[in-house]
């Protein structure tokens, strides 16, 4: 009787989760198929499959987007190659900086027993718990003062912070590492830098990789940060946002707009399918669960 009750509850939860998954899957399938339609076909029937066989679908919608994708800022037009270059710089460098800074700081505060290490650890915990609202104008004002506003250096400098939850993840990871390897290396004459880079960092590389991937995905999809801090250097997410909100010319047509969206969607799905285990790995404040 107990099992029967449990099964009925499981069934209800299964139905809810299945509905959720179906709605989500429908979004992407519909988006992908619509991007391969002719605009007049779409207006006639938004739900139909693209006309003709697969070979006759409007694959040239994608060719059009790759050729014509551009963002106009001020008087200047930014084409796709320049936008992709901006994206690579922002996403790759930004992810690396966002990961390495808390990684290094957490290593020092976890492995060294100085008083200021405890102070830094406590400070991070307080900062994470303290919700400060409306600080963006002050950030931009400080960047303006330093002449770093609307520049790559300024935008990437903002990423140089260790005041986030991933510091705690790394802290726990380094704290849990055995001291024997470190002591053996020191006996063999290794300096502090060598111990850090050659012994300790490789032992916690999984945490580094996971957090790097998380930041990579976040920054790839980030359009609000670049709008604020990299206004004159559009990245792909911001470009797609501009195009899908400005409804101009051919890009006002739904299939073309969806092709632009797929440019943002497909690469991250490829990365997710390769690294899904790392991205979905159980990160907790106690470190990583394998």
């Amino acid at each position: 009787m107990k099992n029967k009750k449990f099964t009925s509850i499981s069934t209800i939860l299964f139905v809810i989760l299945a509905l959720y998954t179906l709605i989500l899957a429908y979004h992407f399938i519909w988006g992908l198929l619509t991007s391969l339609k002719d605009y007049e076909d779409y207006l006639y029937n938004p739900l139909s499959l693209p006309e003709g066989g697969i070979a006759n679908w409007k694959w040239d919608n994608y060719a059009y987007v790759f050729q014509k994708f551009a963002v106009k800022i001020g008087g200047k037009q930014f084409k796709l190659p320049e936008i992709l270059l901006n994206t690579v710089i922002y996403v790759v460098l930004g992810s690396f900086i966002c990961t390495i800074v808390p990684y290094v700081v957490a290593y020092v505060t976890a492995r060294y027993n100085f008083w200021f290490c405890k102070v830094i650890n406590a400070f991070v915990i307080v900062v994470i718990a303290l919700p400060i609202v409306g600080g963006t104008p002050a950030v931009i004002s400080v960047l303006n003062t330093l002449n770093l506003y609307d520049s790559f250096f300024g935008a990437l400098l903002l990423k140089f912070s260790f005041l986030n939850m991933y510091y705690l993840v790394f802290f726990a990871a380094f704290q849990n590492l055995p001291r024997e390897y470190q002591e053996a290396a020191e006996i063999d004459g290794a300096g502090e830098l060598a111990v850090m880079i050659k012994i300790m960092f490789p032992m916690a590389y999984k945490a580094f990789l996971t957090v790097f991937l998380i930041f990579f995905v976040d920054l790839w999809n980030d359009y609000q940060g670049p709008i604020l801090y990299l206004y004159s250097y559009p990245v792909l997410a911001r470009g797609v946002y501009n195009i899908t909100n400005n409804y101009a010319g051919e890009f006002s047509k739904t299939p073309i707009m969806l092709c632009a969206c797929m440019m943002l969607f497909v690469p991250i799905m490829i990365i997710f399918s390769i690294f899904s285990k790392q991205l979905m790995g159980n990160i907790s404040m106690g470190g990583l669960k394998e």
Partner: protein
Amino acid sequence: MKDFKISNKNKKLIFALVILILPIIHVCVFYIGVNFKQILIAFSEYNIVSNVYSFNGLENFKEVFRKMTEEVALRSSLKNSTIVFLTIGGLGNFLSLVLSVYIYKKRFLHGFFKIALFLPHVISIVVLVVIFRFICNDAVPYVANELFGISMEGLLYTDKAFNVILFFALFTTLGTSVLMYSSAMSGISESIIEAAEIDGFNYIQEFWFIIIPMIFPTIKTFIVIAFAAYFTNQMHLFTFYGNRPDNPSYYTYGYYLYSKVVIANGNETTYPMLSAMGILFTVIIVPITFTIKRVMDKYGPSVD
């Protein structure tokens, strides 16, 4: 001539300081310095000609209170932000808890659902919004007309648009919470669950007396985060509407603050008022957040 030798402890000290110096300087400038600047700006006005701030007392705070009562966007933000908080922070957290048990218990297709739940976290919100917008405005009216003979405008053109977007926000945030809760549940010892089953606990009793207390620290974290996000949650309104929503009452405090900074585009004229607003919101939310945390620490279920 004496050999100058540095002791092992001092070598470690020098190394630690060298590593930490740049991150500490960064914190001093971009955390402490920024927060200090926010306070300074909040009590100043900006001269666009000379690019200088000058002290103007409480004028910015007076302007904030005036706007809160006169401006449609801010008047509606109180109601909308509360709705968002109750829906996503309240209902969303509850739904996530319930659904996460299915994943935790590793029921049929749990691995597949895990991936589906994680996808909205991976995919750009711009992509999700664009597809959702076309489905709401084009596909749904088409289906209503073809299947039911009902002529209707797109869902996002109706006066129910806010509710539609709220549903979308709930839908896209559900997944991550479910995964975090199920991750916390995976730390519950199997022996405790088996003992509960032997004692005749049904599903609901197991959920209420075992699972909730065991993962209460995670529940507490999510509830505190929900409170902390009251003034910052944009509900994806900027993604849907850009700087100006179709309906001037479709604002939350988070959306208002972000869109005003975007409109300013580096021009600091409006920053004093926005900084004053931010400080006011911080002064309100910090004690609430800490109180909620303390209350939950004191009166929340214990593992014992």
